[in-house]
């Protein structure tokens, strides 16, 4: 294999890895606020992509994407208000089953609205065959969009969590819910906000990646499993580590095509998940002591 091909694989890995990281960040935001793993996280990505494709029929691309993100955000908030908000200290098993049920419902509703067809947004700039030459590597302009928008998103999120009132309130809730409530923070609203935020991030991810990977009513679950793998790999709750872990998984997967048929690509990712869960459930970058304090 020559050097160019090597870098070509890296670029493909980074593209997918970025999306896994975006899904993982979505998991982390809800996990930090509630201690829940939202098994419907992948469905937000699908919903964002699908809504944007439909809206793009009569709206220009940027407004279609924006509207899709807003709609998914509202769906995320509604889900929290309708299904989660009023439960009093639900058990983990109960929350797992409820969010799995939600993911099935969203998927089936999507199937009835959009059918089984594969859809995609157009390339944001250029076409599917246009490419930019970076060194010896050909890169689709959409890859630049994916990486660029995701990077901006991560930067904005870290600004939000560090410098805005709402973001700091959310962090306070995840550190100690009772103490935050005593300080006058409405913890329940923070949970709703975390669902809305996580849905918005997923939806945006779904929009930017749909020209490359396409979107279908059932494309959420595989993404959710990969995103969860990445979240665990980085250490649950740690969004910056998730980015690193996402890129790592994307690149590993992209090189796995070498040794195994492409049909087994998912098997690689999930095997990594299982090994990490067995060997080091606190993640590659997480601390063991911190993990042992958490209740899973």
């Amino acid at each position, binding site marked *: 294999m020559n050097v160019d091909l090597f870098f070509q694989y890296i670029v493909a890995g980074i593209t997918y890895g970025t999306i896994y990281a975006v899904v993982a960040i979505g998991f982390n935001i809800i996990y930090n606020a509630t201690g829940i*793993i939202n098994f419907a996280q992948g469905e937000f990505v699908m919903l964002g992509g699908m809504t944007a494709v439909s809206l793009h029929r009569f709206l220009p691309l940027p407004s279609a994407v924006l509207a899709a993100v807003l709609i998914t955000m509202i769906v995320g908030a509604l889900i929290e208000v309708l*299904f989660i908000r009023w439960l009093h200290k639900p058990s983990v098993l109960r929350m*797992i*089953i409820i969010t799995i049920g939600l993911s*099935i*419902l969203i998927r089936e509703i999507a199937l009835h609205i959009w059918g089984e067809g594969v859809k995609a947004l157009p390339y944001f700039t250029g076409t599917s065959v246009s490419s930019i030459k970076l060194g010896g590597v050909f890169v689709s302009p959409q890859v630049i969009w994916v990486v660029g928008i995701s990077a901006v998103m991560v930067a904005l999120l870290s600004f939000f969590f560090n410098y805005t009132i709402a973001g700091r309130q959310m962090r306070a809730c995840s550190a100690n819910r009772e103490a935050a409530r005593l300080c006058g923070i409405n913890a329940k609203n923070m949970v709703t906000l975390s669902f809305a935020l996580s849905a918005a991030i997923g939806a945006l991810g779904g929009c930017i990646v749909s020209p490359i990977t396409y979107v279908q009513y059932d494309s959420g679950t595989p993404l959710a499993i990969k995103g969860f793998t990445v979240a665990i790999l980085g250490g649950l709750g740690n969004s910056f580590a998730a980015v690193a872990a996402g890129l790592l998984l994307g690149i590993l997967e992209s090189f796995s095509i070498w040794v195994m048929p492409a049909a*087994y690509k*998912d098997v690689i990712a999930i095997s990594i998940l299982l090994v990490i869960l067995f060997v080091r459930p606190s993640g590659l970058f997480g601390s063991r002591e911190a993990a042992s304090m958490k209740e*899973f």
Partner: protein
Amino acid sequence: MRSSAHLALFGLIAAVIAVQQITAHTGSGYYLTQLTMSAYYSLVIVGLCLLMGYAGQISLGHAGFFAIGGYISAFLTTHDLTPLKDTVFVAFLNKTGILWAREDLYGGQLLTVQPWPACIAAVLFTVVVAYIVGGPVLKLKGHYLAMATLGFGTIVYRIALGTTALGAADGLSDVPPFKLTPFLEVSGEMSARVQNYYIAWGLVILAVFLSLNLIHSRIGRALRAIHAAQDAADAMGIDTAKYKLNIFALSAVFASVAGVFLTHYNGGIGPSEASIMKSVRYVAIVAVGGMANLWGALVMGTLLNFLSLRGYLGSYDDAVFGGILIVIMLFIPRGLLHTDILRDLRALLPGKAGEEDA
């Protein structure tokens, strides 16, 4: 076993016979086909109920065990070994009587493994997989356990879908009938419909009998202690890891046997049997039945699978199961079928604070 459990078991046997008699006398024997298939799915559910309800461990990968059983027996009983006839291993197998020469549908000669050895191989392999996977997986709790079992199920699904030898997206077909004894045969033949109904339900009754004995034994009490408080059970000297692993393997065997039999009954198996949605369905049914309620799981399993297989749920099939999961877990987490159901429902009425024990 308590006498009330004996009574319920006799009730089940009576119900099974009564249903067959009713269909025979009303000329609606065609219902037996779906009832037979429901029985096999209920077998998976009984096993999962032991694991989820009594040992308190969720598994989102049980369709994987079902598929392992089905696929191995389908592969062994359809894979033609004629080209390898002269190799030492195949010749040895042939001599021991494990193989048989038979004609395929078009009159061609096949040399394949007999159904009985294939079934035994499938179940043994399932046990091995269950112990290998279960060992580390059951050390996990909550979200991690759910995701790990979901991951296991997805791996089985991907392998079934991606492997050409297993028929990829088409699955395996032309699986021969399974002659249990000279008089009993698992097959989809119209003439064998009644006996297949009894074979399937006989298996379910056997599984329920075994499970009831287990629940009301020392092991059952240990399992419930684990469910209630694992640390406390540990402190009482219960080897929690061992109990969890053994019950995991047992429920995997139930699923695998169901897979083997249903594959012979249907004459084939496809990758959809291994899909996540199937696993989620099994969990949904156990939840509706009320987790630690074998009878509830059995009744709901038969009912919902029957409705689904008859096509009454139409294109909303999966949505119904998703909806059921949410509604049950939101409002009546103890499930529909238990003695306090009226109190649970009354607690849902406005003005009365619902008690939270989940």
